[in-house]
């Protein structure tokens, strides 16, 4: 019975997500190419500015002598995560309001809309990930150990995204300030997160503070897995993993409390 209820709704969520993507790209000339073009163009621009003009580059410390790995690949890992999170956050806060017709006219549970949005963002993320992996393979930095840790980190990121978006979709319709505040916060976080620069560029005492930023917890371990083939700090990974799970349960609690009244306020 439980399963009978969930399977069609999962299918529906996938269907809604694909339709959302379709409608987004159907009206454009280049269509699905935008999925590739957006991250690639941003990668190009930032590589020129930060990599070439400012001369930022990453050093590999795996072997004793440090060896430069350039700018584009490590940066791309961070950029991909940042773009995905920013897309997720912006769409989540206004999700129920923008999908008002579904909320007030359609007979399916609200979590389907949240899940569909998560899938849609996930598709963008998956495309970026494939590009990152492609680039890593071209630069011959992709290793098996790295792939295993990459997989673990991606799972972590997925749990965090699920929790974060569930919390935001639940609170968004009630607190109008959230979407504005978060947009501002994201601007700040782009520079407050080691995306365009390595974490080691920050002075030691401040490095620990950087880990309070969830984006750091996603970017640094994933970068270390893909670019350097090592896990980085396993404790950091474990604590982020635990926090993500706690976040998810908190979000689930909030969602189950407010889902009944969402249709009253949108």
């Amino acid at each position: 019975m439980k399963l009978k209820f969930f399977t069609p709704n999962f299918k529906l969520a996938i269907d809604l997500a694909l339709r959302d993507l379709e409608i987004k790209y159907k009206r454009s000339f280049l269509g699905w190419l935008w999925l590739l073009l957006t991250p690639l163009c941003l990668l190009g621009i930032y590589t020129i500015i930060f990599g070439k003009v400012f001369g930022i580059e990453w050093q590999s410390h795996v072997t004793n002598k440090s060896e430069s790995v350039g700018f584009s690949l490590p940066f791309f890992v961070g950029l991909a995560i940042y773009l995905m999170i920013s897309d997720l956050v912006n769409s989540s806060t206004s999700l129920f309001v923008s999908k008002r017709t579904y909320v007030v006219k359609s007979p399916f549970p609200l979590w389907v809309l949240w899940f569909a949005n998560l899938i849609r963002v996930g598709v963008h993320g998956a495309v970026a990930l494939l590009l990152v992996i492609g680039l890593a393979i071209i630069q011959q930095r992709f290793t098996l150990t790295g792939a295993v840790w990459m997989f673990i980190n991606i799972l972590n990121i997925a749990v965090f995204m699920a929790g974060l978006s569930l919390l935001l979709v639940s609170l968004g319709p009630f607190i109008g300030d959230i979407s504005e505040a978060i947009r501002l916060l994201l601007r700040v976080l782009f520079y407050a997160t080691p995306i365009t620069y390595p974490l080691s560029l920050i002075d030691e005492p401040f490095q620990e503070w950087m880990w309070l930023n969830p984006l750091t917890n996603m970017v640094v371990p994933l970068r270390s897995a893909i670019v350097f083939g090592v896990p980085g700090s396993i404790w950091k990974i474990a604590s982020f993993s635990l926090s993500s799970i706690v976040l998810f349960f908190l979000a689930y609690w909030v969602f189950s409390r407010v889902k009944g009244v969402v249709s009253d306020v949108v």
Partner: protein
Amino acid sequence: MSSDLLLSAKGINKTYSSSMHPIATLRHALFGGKVSKRDEYPVLKNIDLDICHGETVGILGRNGAGKTTLLGILGNVIQPTSGRVERYGRIATLLGLTAGFNVNFTGRENAYLFCSIQGLTRNETDQRIDAISDFADIGRYFDLPIRTYSSGMQARLAFSCAVHVDAELIIIDETLAVGDANFRMKCYDRIGQMKREGQTFLLVSHNQNMVANFCTRGIVLEGGAKIFDGNTMEAVEEYKRIRTESMGDSELEGKLLKRNDGKSKLPKDVVIRDIELEERQETEEEVGVISATLVARRDVGPVSVNFGIRNQHGIVVCALDGLQTGFIISGLKKGERKNIEMQFSKRLLPGKYYFSTTVHELIGDVKKPQDLRQNAMSFEVLCDSAMSGIADLGMGVKLAEANSE
């Protein structure tokens, strides 16, 4: 009976807290706590409702009576504040025109989406898509975005989708009202045909005739409460009674009307009593005469009387506005009685008929209802006639004279 049960709602309450700030709503949802009574705005009060296989249930009620909210709750779109709804089977819901359509998708894509929301697989939808397109009958618009549609076209598409998803129960909220006459006919035909095949419907309509003609059961909502559930004919009467009473209210509200407490909101300063029917032979034809007595409970100004006769389907056979015929009683003292006679030609064909009458006090050019006797009396016409229907129009058939040579 329980195996036939499709939907069962118990103790449904819905309260909106419209004056509350969204953040207050959120705090209340998260941490509970009391909401001040002033903020609470009850829309539905303790509604129980069972719907079984093969029924066609019509819901009547004035604007704001809670019809759409109730449908939303039954169709799993809105969550009730308290109460439980159990659903056994697929329920297709058309709330408003668009049924959750996305205006940027074409009709075809929306049809797929609708079916997908109703739990149909892509294959199942593929098999139905032609039927949906044919029935909606919107031609090349089927492949254009919904935003180019007229409201009638949207309704066509929505209705067509709803009847093709093999739902056990179809819930329709006034969608049909926007279609043109042809399409409405087509929908009614379709509903009729599906009804015969055992399809269950739940309809909301302002149109009493539609409820009277199509439904097997009528429900009347008023002020968020279910005040009637049963026979459609009686439901229609109940609905009309509410409407008439409230009309008196709204026309004169604040100006003239002092409300009486109690069930009926009519002032009843003058009441109609002792309604009786007799048959009489007038000079030319037989007439029915309804005699009644007006009793004044207080001094009242000029009064007039309306009356009418309905058949068992609730259709008005004939009604008379007494004022327009010049029938005015110029005023009644407290305790005064006047006998009146209302008459009509005996042209009714066999069937059961209901007599209703109202008495108005005339204040300026406003008619203030004083007493309403809905279906005060019923009578049956029994005779052997070749004609059937409602009224004897003196029909006949014969050979035309031109044939005789």
